[in-house]
Structure formats: structure tokens, C-alpha cells
């Protein structure tokens, strides 16, 4: 099975498009490097950027199964593995760039990973992604049999570690990390109800609201626990209008958009059935 073919070996436009899309962040990064847009410490900036894309790819991978269940898009299953592998790829690039930034002094890299908790956590997440990556082949799936699924549930823990690492490395501004945490919460909440219950506007909207509150609460908790910013002020920042759109609102908007899309899809399908029945 090639990155552009489905299980029966036929060309798949969806899979090919996703496969090409997974390289866009890398091409964008290379372009920025070539034009000097990464600034005077390009390796440093590229390390940060590849790390951001690793977390985004992990969250996208974890969004595929819930989207498939909500919208009934069975074909999405075709692309889950390659998005997951892209997460591993960006993670390895991220780690390699860090090693390059340390002038390939592997002793120093090892001691920094051991000494700094956020690096230990990040390294554990990269290691986990590699384990999942090498056990993602068809042969490995067959070999592991009923153990494959429990092993690959480690992806949830890896996402948690990656996002924690993202929070811990922020100098003070953890907005991007909070946003990724919010999306992670959203895609995890979609996994709680069974498929029949999930396919309801009220369940989907309820999950969106719950995810938004959890995002706001956990974000405020982070600032309160790790910085001198008052958690109450962080919560209040969500209610300042007009202001910068805060992570909790983005998560709410995304979750409500999913609910609306599902509703639209269902209404359209029902009308089509009616028209067909009338014809």
C-alpha cells in the first residue's frame, strides 16, 4: 500500500492530497529558512516550529476517529496512519534540530534531557511516537494482534506529554499550548459517548461547551501554578471584548461548528431521502 493508494491498491485522491499536505509545514519551514525569515537563530526557531507541528499532527491524528464516527466518513480511516507517521516525522525533526542546536554534542544533549524535566517529558513523547511509528506497519499490526490496540492507546498519553512539554517550555505566553490542550480535550470528549448518543446536536454542543470550560479552567490553573499571573485575571481575559480571541473561544467555536455541520449533513440527507421517496 503506497501513500497514494487505498487498501485495494487503487489510487486514492483523498489519501494523496493528505499525504502531500503533510509536507506543507516542512516546505514552509525550508522556505522561511532559505529567505532568512527564521531570524538570526534559525535552528532555534525551526526547533520551535517543528515542535508546534508535531503537537498539531498528534491532535489531528486523534481527531480522525471521532470525525469518522460523527460524520460517518469511513474513508478517513485511510489517512490516520500517515498523519500519525507525520507526527513522528516532525518529532524526529524537532529532536534532531535540538541536537544540531547543541552543536551535536550528544553528551550535553543527554545530560540536558536528564536534567531538565520539560526535556525529559518531551523526549519520552518522541520515544513513544517512534514506538508507535515502527509498530504501525501491516506486518506489525498482524504480529501484535489483540495487543496492537492497547499499545496504540499510548497515543493519548503521548499527546498529554507533548502538550505538557509545550506548556513547560513557554517563557510566559502559553496561548498556543493552551489551544492545543483545548483541541485535545475536545477530541477526547468525543470518545466518551457511544456512537448513537454522539450523533446528536445536543451532545455535540454540550461537548463543545464542556471542552471550552475545561480549556479556560486548566489554562488559568497553569498560569496560577507556574507563573505569577493571577488565575482569576486569566479567566477574566476570556470575557474582555474586543480582545484577542482566547483558546477557550476557539475550542468552543470549533466544537459548535462540528455540531452545526453534523446537523446540516443530517438535514440535507433527510431532504434527499424525501425527494427520492417523492420521485
Amino acid at each position: 500500500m503506497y501513500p497514494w493508494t487505498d487498501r485495494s491498491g487503487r489510487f486514492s485522491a483523498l489519501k494523496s492530497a493528505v499525504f502531500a499536505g503533510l509536507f506543507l509545514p516542512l516546505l514552509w519551514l525550508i522556505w522561511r529558512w532559505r529567505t532568512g525569515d527564521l531570524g538570526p537563530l534559525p535552528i532555534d526557531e525551526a526547533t520551535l516550529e517543528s515542535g508546534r507541528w508535531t503537537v498539531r499532527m498528534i491532535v489531528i491524528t486523534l481527531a480522525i476517529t471521532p470525525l469518522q464516527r460523527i460524520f460517518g466518513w469511513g474513508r478517513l480511516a485511510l489517512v490516520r496512519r500517515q498523519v500519525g507517521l507525520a507526527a513522528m516525522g516532525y518529532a524526529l525533526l524537532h529532536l534532531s534540530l535540538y541536537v544540531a542546536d547543541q552543536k551535536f554534542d550528544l553528551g550535553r544533549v543527554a545530560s540536558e534531557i536528564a536534567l531538565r524535566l520539560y526535556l525529559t517529558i518531551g523526549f519520552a513523547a518522541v520515544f513513544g511516537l517512534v514506538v508507535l511509528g515502527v509498530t504501525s506497519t501491516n506486518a506489525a499490526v498482524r504480529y501484535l494482534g489483540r495487543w496492537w490496540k492497547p499499545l496504540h492507546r499510548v497515543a493519548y498519553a503521548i499527546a498529554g506529554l507533548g502538550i505538557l512539554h509545550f506548556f513547560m517550555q513557554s517563557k510566559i505566553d502559553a496561548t498556543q499550548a493552551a489551544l492545543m490542550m483545548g483541541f485535545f480535550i475536545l477530541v477526547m470528549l468525543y470518545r466518551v459517548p457511544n456512537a448513537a448518543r454522539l450523533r446528536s446536536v445536543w451532545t455535540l454542543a454540550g461537548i463543545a461547551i464542556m471542552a471550552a470550560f475545561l480549556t479556560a479552567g486548566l489554562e488559568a490553573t497553569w498560569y496560577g501554578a507556574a507563573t505569577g499571573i493571577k488565575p482569576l485575571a486569566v479567566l477574566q481575559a476570556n470575557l474582555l471584548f474586543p480582545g484577542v480571541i482566547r483558546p477557550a473561544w476557539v475550542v468552543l467555536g470549533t466544537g459548535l461548528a462540528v455540531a452545526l455541520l453534523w446537523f446540516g449533513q443530517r438535514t440535507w440527507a433527510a431532504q434527499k431521502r424525501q425527494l427520492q421517496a417523492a420521485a
Partner: protein
Amino acid sequence: MNILRRRGWELPERLVTPEHVFLNRRAFLAAGTGIAALAVAGRARAETDPSASLYPASVNPAFKDAGRDVTPFEINSTYNNYYEFNTSKRIYEQAEALPIRPWSVVIDGEVEKPVTIAIDDLLKRMTLEERVYRHRCVEAWSMVVPWTGFALSEFVSLAKPLASAKFVRFETFNLPDVAAGQKPGLFSSMPWPYVEGVTIAEAGNELPFMVTGAYGKPLPKSMGAPLRLHLPWKYGFKSIKGIVRVSFTSERPIGFWEQLQASEYGFWANVNPEVAHPRWSQASERVLGTDEQIPTQLFNGYGEYVAALYAGMEKEPLYM
């Protein structure tokens, strides 16, 4: 007796930037986008800044060479931590919105007579000179900057502090209409305005420099125009930008970063390669504009000037 004392800026020949690195850097810069625009903005500023005729000032021979190549202006003026504008390093476009005339500085606290002085009057009363200083950021990178300005000690003499003054507290503007980071939102809950401080003994040292220009021109806004501090032996966050108030206090001021992250950023913040930041090593630094990573020096190599300030203070967290 002729005592040969090696000054901090005297570095061995092996540390001199190799020519190919120097030339590569030029090529790298030529490729940079937005730099032409910046040069235009720089020219416009030089034409309109009422203090433009004061530059370039004569070079203080003691600080004419920092032992390393001067970092290109194009890097220095476009790679800045200035959270008032935003939390990225690229703030130079936004910083152009800051109005720097009229600009005045309040001198108050434990002084004979509190005054407010307009920046151009202040410039007339101080002796401007150029000093090339090494700048070490707490984020483990460094630059070399040819500053123009006057000694903080000269400013302290002007302010005439009382004997009760033990600290000098500096404060930056708070202009939410201009500076996006101070607008209502998460970052408006940060402890604005930016505050930093030094002891009165540190302020009397010869190194602390009140900066009004760089590279022989008035200071670009991204670098802290019209008035900033530079403390070359301390991590960069101590070197406050856009100063509007200097207060002489009996209480130790608590800096912006100390308020935000007391476990990572303290009052003293003297450079020391042996004392790691909680999240990274400070043993070495990346030199902006080169591919080099070089060992960091105690007090950023200025120990001969400042080490005596800290004699007997070993119990203080001097390096954080």
C-alpha cells in the same frame, strides 16, 4: 611598577570571527526580507529625530572594542524581546507606533527635588559617548552593540538622591493604545509597566549605561528608544527599555520578570556560566550573526569592573 591587567574585552586571536563566517553573514543578511524597508524607516527617523545631530558621539577608549565583532544593525534592530508589543522576537514593525517625542522622564522618590525632564533637555545636560558592550540574553544568545549614551552615575548625580536612597527603580511606558501587549487581554494581566532596578552601589559603578543611541544614530524604537538602560554584566532582561520614570527608593524594587516568574528571574541576574537557568544551561551562548556557540564568561567578562560590588554577598542569589 607596570602591572599588566587584562581587560575584559581582550580576547585571544582564536576567538576572532573567521573571515568566511563574516562574509557568510553578509550574504545571509542580503537575503533577508524587509530589511530594505527597515533601512528606509531608519533614514526617515534620522531625519526627523531632533537629537540626530548629536550622533555619532566620540568613543570612550576603554570600551571601544568588545573583543568580538559588532553584531550587524539589521539583526540587532529586528530581533528583540519587547513584550509591550508582543511575545515574539519580531516587534520592530509594531514598535514604530511608539511616539518618542514629546517624551519626558520623571525623577522622583528619595531625591532632593523630584523633577520631570524632557528627553532633549536631558540629552543636553549629559555627555554623550559611544561604548561597545557585549549583551548576554538570559535565553543563552548574545550580541555586541555600539551604544551611545551617558553613564548612569552621571544621571544619578543630576538626580541628587538622598542618603536614604538604596535602590534605583526604572519604569517603562504603559500605553495600551499603542502597545498591543498592554491591550486588554491575557497580557494586560501582566504586571505592567515593566519595572527593573539596581542597587545604588551598582548604579554608581562605571559600567551601567543610559542608552539613547546605537550604531552612531538615535536609538531605533525596537531597541528601546528614546532612553534605555544597559547593564552588560547582567542578563538582558535587566536592561529596561523605553524608560519614563526613575525612582530612588529605600525598598528593593521587584522587576517585571521577578513578578511573573520568581523561580526563574531574580533581582541580581548576574551572568554566570556555572549557574543554570532552571530550564537550560547558561554555560555557553549563541552569538547572533554567526554560527558560533562560545563559552559564557562570569559577569559576561566584566568581572574586573563589577565583581567587587558583590564581595561578602555570597548568600544572595546573585546569579538568578
